[in-house]
């Protein structure tokens, strides 16, 4: 790339933007230490999931019947489970499953929910009423029952679990987004866009969606925590992710409970991992809500 005045300009602009971004993040961390802690926890989790292949000392699927149920020690830092599999490695790979399920379900749930919510608010009138009714119908089902029904139809396994968890989240997201979108709809620039002849799809995607990002983001982070918990519950009931996949909820099933007294490491560590992950997401979401809600800004 030739060094021209334009490129220098571009580069400095990009740098300035990046440093502004970094400054904003550091600001956030300083003002809201709890949120920062949440962010750090999540960062650690993401790094663990991404580098699992390098970080995990042993193959999480490798059974070792000679070393079943061994206590934490030199060879297995967090001990082994009922089949002699290394708990630490399974925890590390488990973060990958948790993030996949959490992100997948949260993403699908919030995206669908947001689009439905915004479209419903935008079109208003009869469309709004009908969509609201349909969302109400789904809303009236307890979360876990809806997830169970979807699993009963689709079967078990990671992909199906993601869909099962995303399903009850769509109406909840739609409802929250709709109320924000209703406020945005009254904004003058929406009318201007209509007057300019922009199509519905363009207005919804380009103009309304970005403005409901704040509550959407808060919902999404809260959902992430919920999704991880829901996956754990489904796996605990035997209707979620299946053996021999490494997943935190799965690790808490069966043998972990049975051997809870003599081999507590099997139940304690996955339980801690789940709690920490959900904790982190909730802290972050909480602080985000505080930061983005103008009424609660620190004076």
């Amino acid at each position, binding site marked *: 790339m030739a060094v021209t005045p334009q490129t220098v300009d571009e580069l400095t602009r990009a740098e300035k933007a990046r440093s502004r971004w970094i400054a904003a993040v550091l600001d956030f961390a300083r003002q809201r230490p709890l949120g920062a802690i949440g962010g750090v926890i999540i960062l650690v989790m993401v790094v663990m999931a991404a580098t699992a292949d390098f970080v995990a000392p042993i193959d999480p699927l490798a059974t070792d019947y000679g070393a079943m149920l061994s206590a934490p020690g030199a060879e297995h830092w967090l001990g082994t489970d009922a089949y002699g599999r290394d708990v630490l490695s399974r925890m590390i790979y488990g973060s990958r499953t948790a993030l996949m399920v959490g992100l997948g379900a949260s993403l699908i749930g919030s995206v669908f929910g947001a689009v439905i919510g915004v479209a419903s608010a935008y079109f208003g009138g009869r469309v709004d009423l009908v969509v609201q009714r349909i969302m109400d119908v789904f809303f009236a089902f307890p979360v876990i029952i809806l997830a169970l029904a979807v699993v009963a139809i689709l079967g078990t*396994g990671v992909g199906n679990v993601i869909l099962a968890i995303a399903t009850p989240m769509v109406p909840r997201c739609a409802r929250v987004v709709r109320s924000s979108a209703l406020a945005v709809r009254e904004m003058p620039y929406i009318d201007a866009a209509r007057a300019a002849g922009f199509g519905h799809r363009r207005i919804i995607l380009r103009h309304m969606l970005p403005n409901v990002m704040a509550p959407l983001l808060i919902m999404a982070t809260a959902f992430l925590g919920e999704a991880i918990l829901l996956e754990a519950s489904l796996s605990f009931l035997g209707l979620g992710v*299946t053996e021999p996949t490494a997943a935190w909820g799965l690790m808490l099933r069966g043998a972990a409970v049975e051997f809870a007294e003599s081999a507590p490491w099997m139940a304690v560590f996955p339980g801690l991992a789940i709690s920490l992950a959900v904790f982190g997401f909730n802290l972050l979401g909480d602080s985000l809500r505080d930061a983005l809600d103008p009424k609660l800004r620190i004076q």
Partner: protein
Amino acid sequence: MRMKRLAGLLAVAAGALLAFSTQAQSPRYGGELVFPVPSEPPSYDGHRENTFGLIHPLAPFYNTLLRVDPNDPSGTKPVPSIAESWTESTDGLTFTFKLHKGVKFHDGSEMTSKDVKATYDKIIFPPPGVGSERKGQYGVVAAVEAPDPSTVVFKLKWASAAFLAGLASPWNFIYKADILAKDPNWYEKNIMGTGPFTFVEHVKGSHVVGKKNQSYWDKGKPYLDGFRAIFMRDSAAQVASVRGERAHIQFRSFTPKDRDNLKAALGDKITVQESAWDCILLVGINHEKKPFDDKRVRRALTLALDRHEASKALSQIAIVKSVAGVQVPGTPFATPPEELNKLAGYWTDIGKSRAEARRLLKEAGLPEGFSFTFTNRGIPMPYEPLAVWMIDQWRQVGLNVKHNVIEPRAYYTPVRKGDTEVFMDFQCGYIVEPDLDMYKFLSVDRNPANYARYTDRVLDDLYDKQSRATNVEERKRLIRQFEKRLLDEEAHYLMTLQWHRIIPHSSKVKGWTITPSHYLNNTLDVVWLSE
């Protein structure tokens, strides 16, 4: 004179000692037995249901014609129950049973041979519109007759060594003929039997209570004042109830770890009884899906499994233990280990076994890393540990196995339709009897429960021959041949490990002997509480 006095004193002392010791043995009357039951039955009709969830709370209300000897740990001997004695004709085609006199239903009416006949007619020759689950088991019966009120005669089509075992089935509750005549489905929602306990109440989702039948025909029994069966789905809750001394015993089984925990917590207050269990998980291979129609592939699947190592390892964490063939190890017709270890998959040299497996897979043309789906039933114990073990073993011969878990009750739908490739199947018997244990492996046109969907006339022929064999040694020989063809030569179905029944119970419970079946010994007439 002094000698006489001394002798006298000694005699008295000896007498007292004897009396004291026998008093510790003789049953004490009274008390309510409390036990958790993991599953609740959908109806009360024993002729129709298949779940132990029906037997455990309801068997005490009924009697059967014969029963499996409750004091015999092998669980193989049919002994008299309602029938006092029987005679067999020389050609083996007619069995005449003499019934006890003075047997009363709980409503006070007298039980006669008419009731026994009506019961068995319902099971074997159901009227149209009623249907019977177990009709197929009694194909050998030509007719049931009741020539006089205390005699029942069964006429058979051919001589069968397993017939008496069939009559000892814990499911064949004796019902009242008059009631069946009015409404054949009455027993689904109601209870009226001749058993040692009478029905008190059933609170849905909660418990069943029974109390002592004061006019029970077997004088002196039952010893208990009553029983309380509490429905508890969660196994941890069941263990906790025994540990917290709120329940006395659980009649199905606990895991090895539960037993250790209970022993550690309660010491001598817990007595442990263990037995090989007449239940086994099988690997079914769908012969209609390629490449599983090739017996080399099927043999490779069984050769890859190191059953001996698994027996040692998995018996610590699961309710499985012995390496087994088609019969429960230690029972009369079971193949001794030296013989068994010659079959494919049972070799003690696992290296050789796996090498052979790889060779067969290559010969059959399967690439390295060949992938297939193993379909499993979503029950944690012991389906999950066995699946984890097998998937790992198959991995070691270069097979990449996907694990598909289906929830328990929906499981057999796709299996039955033939939509699965390799799947987990299971078999639980109420009595160790080759006719019953090997019935499953007959060709699919004879037995629809053969989900591997194969047709093997040689196997069918061996089954029929052993069923009619009158000489015990001849029968053993035929059974071994059957086993060899099933597990080794053709590898139609694979055996995993025999289940192992572990019952740690309160030491107050006396008189109950463990048998290989969790469907047996639940009438509770021989059980008593020491305090």
